[in-house]
């Protein structure tokens, strides 16, 4: 048993503030409000200095005092510290002065930001003694739970909607996990998982381990600040499924300011969704915080297709409080966003990345993000996982015989004529 963390003391209901012990529980007994980790920032401040952080390995665990486990991390110790790319060509294409891409398409080991949350959830699952871990997933989380559980020697079950992309299904099966496809939308997978978690005592990373899981997303925000030279970006565009990542990036910036690691400068967070499943963006545009669920999500951005977003309410408040806003884009715009990012920056993002890029374009075009500003786009997963979405939509293979004459005739002559 690890000694309790001196920095992370309790779980606390976000609604009523009741305190709970650091167990595998995720909602308040009294109002079902989500439970969140509570830290002793006064104890953290003298320990977690810029110098201390800079002296540590380049992983998300360099901010470990702000992550909710008791002992040393034991799962996913190599996760995080992905590149923050200064995206000058994309900035010109979108018409903004300064732009960065936080590139979690190359996160270790499963090429999405979910490795961050799983690293925390499974490290905590081990501390709490779980032998079987599981998740409800739209794909990326399943990949990450499967891989990280395999390397930790934990048995795992991942439950996914039956119609996911092949890359995401194979990308779980290969690790020897139990992949269960559910005939239904993600929200039904979620409901089932909630019932299973209560019944068998498994560690479900996004159900009973959710308070630990969710905090892992903050590391993306910490890294952005550090990689920008210890400052909070003016504008951050974040894809939204449940809305959790956006609220945690908002929290991360606030914590860094509170700890004096960055100046407490004004910042805004913006949420990006696909029009075929945009309950949070639509509520934001209607000017309300009542998120109307989407019964049948219809979008190629399957990783964002959550019709009943658990953190929608908090995401809306984070956007509103910081002066940010939300956008949504069609399937064609998602493909255009994927191509633009790939062609400008050499980064191949999954559909959620296309959503983020094209929503950023809309936010800039409508003046919500000013053209003379500086923005960060959070790109959360790799394009190799969702190849179906762009197949046949980004140029064609040109076939020739292995002959110089054919090359000159069919390729060189045509291309020089076109130029």
């Amino acid at each position, binding site marked *: 048993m690890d000694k309790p963390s001196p920095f992370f003391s309790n779980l606390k209901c976000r*609604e009523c503030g009741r305190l709970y012990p650091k167990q595998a*529980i*995720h*909602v*308040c*007994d*009294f*109002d*079902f*409000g*989500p439970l969140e980790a509570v830290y002793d920032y006064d104890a953290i401040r003298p320990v977690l200095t810029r110098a201390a952080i800079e002296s540590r390995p380049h992983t998300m665990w360099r901010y470990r005092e702000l992550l909710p486990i008791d002992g040393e991390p034991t799962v996913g110790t190599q996760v995080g510290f992905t590149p923050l790319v200064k995206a000058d060509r994309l900035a010109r294409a979108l018409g903004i002065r300064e732009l960065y891409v936080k590139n979690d398409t190359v996160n270790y080991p499963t090429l999405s930001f*979910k490795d961050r949350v799983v690293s925390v959830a499974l490290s905590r699952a081990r501390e709490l003694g779980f032998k079987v871990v599981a*998740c*409800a*997933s*739209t*794909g*990326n*989380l*399943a990949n990450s739970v499967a891989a990280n559980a395999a390397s930790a020697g934990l048995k795992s079950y991942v439950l996914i909607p039956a119609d996911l992309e092949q890359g995401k299904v194979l990308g779980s099966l290969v690790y020897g996990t139990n992949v269960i496809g559910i005939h*239904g939308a*993600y*929200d*039904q997978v*979620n*409901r089932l*998982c*909630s*019932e299973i*978690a*209560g*019944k068998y005592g498994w560690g479900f990373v*996004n*159900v*009973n381990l*959710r308070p630990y*899981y*969710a905090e892992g997303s903050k590391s993306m925000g910490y890294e952005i600040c550090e990689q920008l030279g210890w400052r909070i970006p003016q504008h951050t565009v974040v894809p939204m*499924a*449940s*809305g*959790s990542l956006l609220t945690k990036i908002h929290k991360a910036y606030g914590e860094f300011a509170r700890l004096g690691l960055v100046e407490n400068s004004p910042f805004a967070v913006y949420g990006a969704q696909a029009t075929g499943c945009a309950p949070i963006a639509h509520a934001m545009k209607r000017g309300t915080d009542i998120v*109307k*669920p989407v*019964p049948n999500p219809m979008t190629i951005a399957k990783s964002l297709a*959550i019709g*009943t*977003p*658990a*953190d929608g*309410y908090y995401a809306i408040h984070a956007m509103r409080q910081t002066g940010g806003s939300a956008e949504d884009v069609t399937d064609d715009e998602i493909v255009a966003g994927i191509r633009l990012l790939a062609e400008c920056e050499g980064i191949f993002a999954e559909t959620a990345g296309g959503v983020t890029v094209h929503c950023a374009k809309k936010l800039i075009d409508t003046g919500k993000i000013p053209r003379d500003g500086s923005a960060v786009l959070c790109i959360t997963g790799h394009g190799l996982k969702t190849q179906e979405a762009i197949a046949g939509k980004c140029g064609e293979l040109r076939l020739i015989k292995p002959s110089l004459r054919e090359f000159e005739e069919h390729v060189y002559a045509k291309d020089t004529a076109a130029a």
Partner: protein
Amino acid sequence: MPTVLIPTPLRKLTNELEEVSAAGATVGELLDNLDRAFPGLKDRVCDEAGNVRRFVNIFINGEDIRFLEEKATPVKDTDEISIVPAIAGG
């Protein structure tokens, strides 16, 4: 009578029962009857105004009652009702 699946946070009120039966022609009536059998249960699920709380989802045979008629949704004897807390994404 319809079957109701009780989530972990509410089992302290149901003597740790995972599944209970309750009568009622609608979801609202069923919640009232559940509250009689297990006092305090309705307060956990509904706010002061009697509306289902923001972070609670109620399903009938897997359908979210917000897509049906909310608390006025009719309930049949063979139905399975789930009360489920909101879950983070994936």
